[in-house]
């Protein structure tokens, strides 16, 4: 039964997930712990104000935003780059490993000789990936929630939840893209390169479309733009997030159907 495939995948990677939770929680806690010293340094804002526009744009430093406020600080320090990066690394790595990597290693042959529909096995692995992202996101979310009163970030609870939903959806899209590409073509390299390239492009388009006008029309295809850049200050774009979620489902389903049509690659 395909459920076992998802449960088994999680069971096998439980140590890895635990390590990711600890790592993300530690990073979040460390960044939050710096906040009191930033809060008491108004010159920080002046410094940031003198950043090149490109950097400000990339780091999501919004016009009129206040980097010395709790939400502004967390947006710039965590949600503009590091947190999405960490979760994307987790998602793309796992998405490429769990199917394309297994096929490369020759371990898929026995599995697919079992009474499973191939599409069901892709969906099961997709579910395992979603669960991993969820668990690691919750670890980061809970850490911020606990540490907020201690360092005085004064984060809005709704925005905090939305921010992690946004990051998780971004990771899910790129992870399922890795899984879908690996299902469609038997190449672990492509299963990493395609979503990693898409993430880099999406990030740059989102960060730079204000400065480079010719990029502006492309912002609609950037998942980062669709979800929104300053979640703790402005919340996330619900409609855009749903679009990214829908795109994630499409790439996973497409990969699952293409896997059914092709030959398994054997060593």
């Amino acid at each position: 039964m395909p459920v076992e495939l998802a449960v088994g995948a999680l069971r096998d990677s439980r140590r890895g997930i635990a390590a990711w939770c600890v790592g993300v929680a530690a990073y979040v806690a460390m960044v939050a712990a710096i906040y009191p010293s930033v809060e008491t340094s108004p010159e920080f804002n002046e410094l940031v104000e003198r950043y090149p526009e490109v950097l400000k744009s990339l780091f999501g430093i919004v016009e009129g935003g206040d980097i010395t406020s709790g939400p502004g600080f967390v947006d710039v320090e965590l949600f503009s780059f590091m947190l999405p990066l960490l979760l994307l690394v987790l998602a793309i790595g796992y998405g490429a490993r769990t199917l394309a990597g297994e096929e490369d290693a020759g371990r898929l042959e026995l599995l697919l000789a079992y009474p499973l529909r191939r599409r069901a096995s892709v969906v099961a692995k997709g579910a395992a990936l979603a669960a991993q992202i969820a668990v690691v996101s919750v670890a980061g979310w809970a850490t911020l929630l606990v540490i907020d009163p201690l360092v005085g970030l004064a984060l809005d609870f709704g925005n905090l939840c939305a921010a992690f939903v946004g990051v998780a959806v971004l990771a899910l899209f790129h992870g399922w893209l890795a899984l879908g590409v690996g299902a469609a073509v038997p190449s672990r390299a492509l299963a990493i390169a395609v979503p990693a390239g898409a993430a880099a492009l999406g990030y740059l388009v989102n960060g730079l479309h204000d400065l480079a006008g010719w990029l502006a029309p492309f912002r609609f295809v950037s998942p980062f733009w669709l979800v929104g850049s300053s979640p703790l200050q402005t919340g996330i774009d619900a409609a855009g997030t749903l679009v990214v979620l829908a795109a994630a489902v499409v790439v996973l389903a497409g990969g699952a159907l293409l896997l059914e049509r092709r030959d398994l690659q054997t060593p």
Partner: protein
Amino acid sequence: MEARQYDRAVTATPAIETVGLCKTYGGKVRALVDLDLRVERGEVFGYLGPNGAGKSTTIRLLLDLIHPTEGRAALLGLETRSQGVEARRRVGYLPGDLRLPDRLTGAEFLGSLARLRGHVDEARRDEVSARLGAILDRPLRHLSKGNRQKIGLVQAFMHRPELVVLDEPTAGLDPLLQGEVRALMREVAAEGGTVFLSSHSLDEVQHTADRVGIIRSGRLVDVDSVAGLRSRSLRRVRVAFANGVPRERFDRIEGVRVVEEQASLVRLLAPETAMDGLVKTLAEHTIVDLVSEPADLEEIFLELYREADGAG
């Protein structure tokens, strides 16, 4: 009454049936050409051929791991393309190049596979594990090739499948265990199940199989009973004569072929059935030395292929 008729209808379908099955890679590499094969229920069928002949390609087509370029196949009356899931539920499979997860122990891996299948006879799993001496409590990466193979064999037999497909099952096993695997295969057949045994070793196949199919360069060359095959089993004969002897005399004996002839030395290939006539003919001459030994597999294959080419 009706139930009995139903039973008969079901068992009348062969365990494996392929019709015009072809697999071509990249439009030109013909891995399998027009395979028409019928394996009945209750038999152990040996699928014999040198490496790269198309044995694994056939098996992967049967399990729907790869898709045919042309033709169709059915397992237990179920089409591999459209009813593959249902078919594979009733099939056990051991890949020729078995790759196992590193970190799991044998018991964890088998447990996971059992849940994946949904139904497994635990008593059977323990019985097969014990008979093969499978090591279940150590991570799979620490096991030798032979011990990994045992885990693969356990998972192929553990759900009492109606059809067991084994690709080179005794690779890496010692002779004692090879015997145990043979016994397992014979038991499956005795209980009405079917075993499809792929191997490059004539020895392995002839002690286990009822019938043998021989494949070469993607084409099924011959299907015969093991008794029939054995009657063709070749001897390599070397005769040293005191005086030179004309070769025509030996070629005239049915099945005998002269491979090499030197001044006073003749090398021959002769099926066992021709040995009596050969020796009696040889006895008419003065012989210095006579050596007769089983021809190796390559020679038997070559001889079978020669016949097939001659017939075709």
